[in-house]
């Protein structure tokens, strides 16, 4: 299990390849990446986090995923600091013998990371800055699991 909370950019493809190469006994690899949308007007995204708690919260979520599904491995990378449109904010990857496990575990990780890992996004636009509000649907998504 690899968990990285970092300011530096990462290479989604290289991470996906390294992750898949490490799991030759697994048949299914799912990746999710969250990108800064190049929406009209967004100049950058600023991501704040809670050093210390962040890694712990992510590890707890990843361990829960490993308990619930038959998984070979889990990868979570999440950036903080300033990100430009089009950049990858984060990624998760799951490897499993069967595709359903890989898919469900990746969705579970995303749902929990979204609402339970201490990150906060601020949008920096031409006309000022605004903290991104949490969505009711993100909290509701946890009810699935």
């Amino acid at each position, binding site marked *: 299990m690899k968990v990285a909370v970092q300011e530096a950019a990462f290479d989604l493809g290289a991470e996906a390849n390294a992750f898949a190469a490490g799991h030759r006994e697994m048949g299914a690899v799912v990746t999710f990446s*969250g990108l800064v949308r190049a929406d009209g007007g967004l100049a950058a995204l600023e*991501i*704040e*986090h*809670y050093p*210390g*708690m962040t890694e*712990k*919260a992510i590890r707890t979520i990843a361990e829960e995923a490993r308990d619930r599904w038959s998984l070979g491995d889990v990868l979570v990378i*999440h950036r903080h600091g300033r990100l430009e449109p089009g950049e990858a*904010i*984060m990624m998760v990857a799951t490897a499993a013998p069967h595709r359903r496990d890989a898919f469900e575990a990746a969705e579970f990780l*995303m749902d929990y*990371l*979204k*609402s*339970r*890992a*201490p*990150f*906060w*996004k*601020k949008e920096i636009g031409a006309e000022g800055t605004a*903290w*991104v*509000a*949490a969505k009711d649907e993100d*909290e509701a998504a946890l009810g699935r699991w």
Partner: protein
Amino acid sequence: MEVLYFAWVRERIGLPRERVETRAATVSDLVAELTAREERYAAAFADLSALRVALDQELAEFDAPLDGVREVAFFPPMTGG
């Protein structure tokens, strides 16, 4: 204890962390103490339903006891991912 603030809570209060000497029994008691201090705290804590709290880096409820807790953090609902 150490009290930490993140995102707009940090911005409203105007600092990321501070040392607070308190005998507050619960998180709610601590919030009441801070609110009584200054307007910027009152502004940050005006709507507790818009806030989350972590005790020693674990999410907790506002009625949780502070006994033995070394680090309290206040922040808005998280928006990672």
